[in-house]
């Protein structure tokens, strides 16, 4: 899952980025409105966390520009402006959620996950594919009732595939959603993570869930 944080307070940006990355999200960051808008227009983010009082371009103007450009990204406004009319204005401009500072990191995380569920039109925080069960809140994976320990990047990849269960997911789409825009790694890193996932999920004796579709991408589906 790929997030964008637009926040001009350096320390806040840094800690949010770190905290969210540790939760397995791919995080891009911008510390002014113009850069934020540029990134949001040129990458596909699952959720944008947006401050309102920003240098160069005000957060609401950024949001407006995004919506006018018909960019559907879910936007969570995170701001010190806590008056009811500010909240109303934020939501009416096209924000999907509104949080005021200071905030609890746990709550921010929960709200980001809720927005992701909305994006993938799921109410259940669990993702189930055949006998594979992913708890997106606790971020643990079980196959046939047995825990499968995963590294954050592996988990992120599996969760992304599970969100698109049954569909063929192109490698470019995985790339878009799972890698930082500054990420230097080459595209076959995806193959590396896929093969690691296979080793852990599709153990010998179990019917394989992760399929490679030649020339198209990957697919997660039950037998």
């Amino acid at each position, binding site marked *: 899952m790929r997030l964008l944080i637009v926040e001009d307070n*350096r*320390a806040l940006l840094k800690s949010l980025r770190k905290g969210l990355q540790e939760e397995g999200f791919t995080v891009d960051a911008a510390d002014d409105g113009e850069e934020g808008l540029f990134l949001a227009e040129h990458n596909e983010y699952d959720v944008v966390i947006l401050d309102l009082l920003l*240098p160069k371009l005000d957060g609401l103007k950024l949001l407006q520009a995004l919506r006018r450009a018909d960019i559907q990204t879910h936007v969570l406004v995170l701001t010190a402006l806590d008056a009811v009319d500010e909240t109303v204005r934020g939501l009416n401009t096209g924000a999907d959620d509104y949080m005021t500072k200071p905030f609890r990191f*746990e709550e921010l995380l929960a709200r980001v996950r809720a927005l992701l569920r909305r994006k993938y039109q799921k109410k259940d925080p669990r993702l189930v594919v055949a006998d594979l069960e992913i708890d997106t809140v606790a971020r643990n994976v079980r196959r046939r009732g047995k825990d499968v320990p995963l590294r954050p990047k592996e988990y992120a990849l599996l969760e992304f595939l599970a969100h698109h269960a049954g569909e063929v997911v192109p490698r470019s789409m995985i790339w878009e959603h799972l890698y930082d825009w500054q990420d230097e790694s080459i595209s076959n890193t995806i193959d590396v993570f896929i093969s690691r996932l296979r080793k852990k999920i599709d153990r010998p004796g179990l019917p394989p869930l992760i399929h490679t579709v030649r020339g198209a991408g990957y697919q997660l589906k039950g037998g």
Partner: protein
Amino acid sequence: MRSLRLKLILGSLFVLGTVIISFGLFVYFAKSRALLSVMDGRLAAGVKALASHVERDSGRLIFAPAEDYDIRGELPPAYRIIDEQGREIARSAAGSSPAWPVERPVEGRSLLATMGTGKDGRWRVVTFSSRISGEQDRAEENEPSMTPAAVVTIQCATPLGPISHELREFVSQLAVLALAAFLIAGGGSFLLAGRALRPIRRINEALANVSETRLDERLDPRPFDKELHPLIGQLNAALDRLEEAFRRERQFTADVSHELRTPVAGILSTIEVLLRKERSEKELREAHEDNLEIGRSMQSMIERLLLLARMDAGKASPRRQSTPLAALVGEILAAAGPEAQKRNLRLSQDVDAALRADIDPDQMKIVLANLVDNAVRYNRPDGSVTVGARRSPEGLVVEVRDSGMGIPADQLPLVFDRFHRVDSSRSEETGGCGLGLSIARKIVEAHGGRILASSGPSGSVFSIILPEA
């Protein structure tokens, strides 16, 4: 307790009482004069009648009404006729009579008097002197010898009792009337005063609706009389100012809380993320450094806020002393040097070495440091910052000129507002905390001066004008 209504009532009753009493007195005297003049007329007629019946008879003066003539209808209640020697020729029959006045009028004239004795009280007396012509002696017709003419004094009197009685009755009627008028007027003025004061009550009620939370209420002058419109206008203007003050206060409080929320969110989020797992020494150190930086910027903001609050409360009045300006400006520019070097800015000063100003050097340093700091921050690379000072007819002018991007015209009037920032940024990189110019203005105003901002495409100029004593 002073009551406007009571004053209005008492005032109108006083005026009314004066009018009623003067009117009563006037009517009373007019009436008594009229009665008296009727009485005097009757007395005069009586005197004339009496005089016409005085004649000579054989040298003696006698009062002899004709046999066939009934004089009684013309006779006053009391009279007497005396001759020049004071001998009584005739007098009214039994009954009381006044003490007759002694004074005699000139012949042919009458004299009026009011005598205060007699058992019937006061009397009105007319005294008349009449010449009785001489008469031919009837006995010696052939040798007529004339008896000389004589003067008699005729006095007629009427008791004043009936008039006094009538006047007393008249006075009591008048008193009843006056009392009634007074009561009616009292009631009327009570009602009128109430009516006149009703707008005050209504204004009062309307003002009661205006509470701290509903300061946007205004009085509508339309239902009030036009005399009250200026008052209502003033009240509304006072409410405007009050509302504006409250709005600023609320805005300021809201701004302060916003300004403090972001750094607090930064500290909390840094710590929360940190505590989610075991951390290495390096990570811990980095988090501490981040929080230290936030803490320092919060401290600086709080100190600025405290300075502003002290100045607002008038507790930081400038301690003026004669200060060489060139040295002060040099110090400020030196402090801004490193930051300017990073951006490759040229700092210069145009201040006469001999120029001194009567200012608080510590406070003026804060002002200039803020202005120079802004000039450095909002400049273009390779630009310049110039601080100049000169005397002008208006006073001492200190100018900080930059070659930056300038300030949009619609933002110029707002730059001195607390927490106002041209690009609404709260970033430490460009921003500071948005209080510097407010503090600068406050200090300059405490010095009795003004601070102005002007801006164009080639940069902005902030001018401090300090009037010299």
